[in-house]
């Protein structure tokens, strides 16, 4: 397995221009071992994370995530891992294929970046192609990966134990309803529900939100409970900010849009030190407390919950590089301890 992975790594530099690769393993994989995972790894089985969702729970052994600024790089690397290429980008590939060890049970594809959603809108049912802004990086029309909305790599890195240096990964498959979003809601409602009513009321957002700079300026929004009571609507970013620690997010998002199955979707891939950090962030997004105490509904006017249906959820451990090929649940040698100021 390591040989197969190194084959594609030798073909491209490790960057967005080249290829960014992770390998991760599920709780179902680690259940194959007699020993439990060390306590330093918080990797529970996936579960429903909202009272109104009923996702299928994913149990593949492993997930390989390939990302690049160039689609051909991802497709080439995939073929090489399947043993279908003798050379990749001019580099000779090993005889060993990942598929010698694994059977492929699922394949999820997608894109993120200015203009790509509009370009791909025609491939999915129910996407108002003329409404997705030409320059939007995501289907819902707004920038979302603001630098200050992301956890640092240190914050998501496992600090101790044999898997120190690794991280956990949550992958959900979300289906989007863009008909309601674009054809029924107006711009005010989209801004209020994605960010917060304050932003909509004060014309804070221009276009896709590039004018906001490195943060979604959530500090300017009023407290969530106050907005819920007085405006009857709360924003997605506004709610999610409650899951911060020391005013810093605790998950690192690598989500991307998709037209898999002819549906407008979002593969929400997030890295965090323990799965609990993701669950805490999602809980904040659910707005369960405000829906009990205000005009905000379970999904209606409750950020973007109205437009999202969770189809699948899965949890994984991304081990440190030294353990990335079929790691045991209790590796014998301790990897190096990681020091992190934010721990």
């Amino acid at each position, binding site marked *: 397995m390591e040989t197969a992975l190194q084959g594609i790594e030798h073909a491209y530099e490790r960057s967005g221009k080249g290829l960014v690769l992770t390998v991760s393993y599920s709780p179902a994989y680690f259940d194959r071992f007699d020993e439990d995972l060390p306590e330093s790894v918080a990797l529970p089985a996936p579960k429903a994370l909202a*009272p*109104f969702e*009923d996702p299928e729970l994913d149990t593949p052994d492993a997930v390989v995530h390939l990302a690049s600024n160039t689609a051909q790089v991802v497709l080439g690397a995939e073929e090489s891992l399947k043993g279908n290429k003798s050379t990749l980008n001019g580099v000779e590939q090993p005889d060993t294929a990942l598929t010698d060890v694994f059977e492929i049970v699922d394949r999820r594809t997608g894109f993120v970046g200015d203009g790509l959603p509009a370009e791909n809108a025609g491939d999915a049912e129910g996407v108002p192609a003329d409404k997705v802004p030409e320059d939007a990086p995501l289907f819902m029309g707004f920038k979302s990966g603001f630098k200050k909305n992301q956890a640092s790599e240190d914050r998501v890195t496992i600090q101790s134990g044999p898997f120190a240096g690794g991280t956990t990964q949550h992958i959900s498959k979300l289906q989007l309803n863009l008909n309601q979003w674009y*054809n029924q809601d107006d711009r*005010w409602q989209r801004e209020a529900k994605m960010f917060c009513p304050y932003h909509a009321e004060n014309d804070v957002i221009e276009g896709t939100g590039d004018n906001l700079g490195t943060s979604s300026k959530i500090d300017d929004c009023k407290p969530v409970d106050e907005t819920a*009571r*007085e405006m009857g609507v709360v924003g997605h970013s506004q709610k999610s900010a409650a899951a911060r620690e020391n005013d810093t997010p605790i998950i690192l998002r690598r989500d991307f849009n998709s037209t898999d199955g002819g549906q407008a979707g979002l593969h929400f891939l997030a890295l965090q030190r323990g799965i609990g950090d993701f669950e805490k962030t999602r809980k904040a997004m659910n707005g369960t407390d405000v829906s009990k105490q205000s*005009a905000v*509904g379970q999904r*209606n006017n409750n950020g973007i919950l109205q437009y999202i249906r969770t189809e699948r959820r899965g949890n994984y451990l991304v081990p440190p590089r030294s353990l990335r090929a079929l790691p045991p649940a209790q590796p014998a040698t301790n990897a190096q301890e990681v020091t992190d100021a934010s721990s």
Partner: protein
Amino acid sequence: MPGMNEQGGYKCALTYSFPHRFWLMKPSGITKVDIQSADSVHMMPIVWDAQTRIIPPDINPQLTITQDGESVDQFAPWPMLSQPMGFHFGDNAQLNGNGTYTVDVSIGGPSTRRTGSLAENQGDASFTFEFEFNQSTLDEISVTDLSEDKQGTKGAVDVMDMEMLPSSQVPKPDALPGDVRGTATSGDAKFVVTVLEDASRFGGTQDQVYLAVSPRTPYNRIMLPMMSLSGTLTRGGSSVFDGILQATIDPELRYHYGATVSDVQSGDELTITVDSPPQTARHEGYETAFVDMPSMTLTL
């Protein structure tokens, strides 16, 4: 109604009508939603608690429409108010023309405070309906009912017998439990105030009383959910209660807003403030009602 589907303590019927225009709420007014050319039907899954026949507005159904296993449309219908249909969840769906479709309706857990037997009904159910869509039939009728057919005669479309469906009405004032102390009006809606001895069922103590406010449409007595209400109770010029009136679904009071207070005395003044009007979408006839809602004061 033949073939009514029941699961997990809930029953569900799927109803539809021709596409409707409607309005979505926002703090500064309303947003008109026009009928799109691709809209085929206005689809309304009606879900109710099997025991009390209450339609809980806090459970947002999710609809998935398929044809021959292929996805056709999927959405979470909006909570809505309509004069003929009362409170319901609905939205215009886009089908692929005449033919047989499968509609899955799934519901999750509740999100509003519940009391009595309703508190035990945690939801998580799904219902499957099959129906034959025919444009010419739709043009002739106003509302068609679709219910899952246990007899296996697929595709039968019966004209809806509305009497078989539960209503989203709240009780007449004299049928409300407790001591009814008055009615106020704001933004066309009526707010009936009643006081119940023993607030223990509502999170209070036996010694406390429960102050309940039951808003409804003026003529049809349709519940008005998804408001932010708060109340101030004053006695001899000083405040004895000042806080939110929490939305609650109770088997007897049905959907209402309330708070526990130490007691309510004759001559107390209650001010009810509508911090947010009902955030339900509106069908024609309700687009301007229950929007601008000034505060009300009653002497109890």
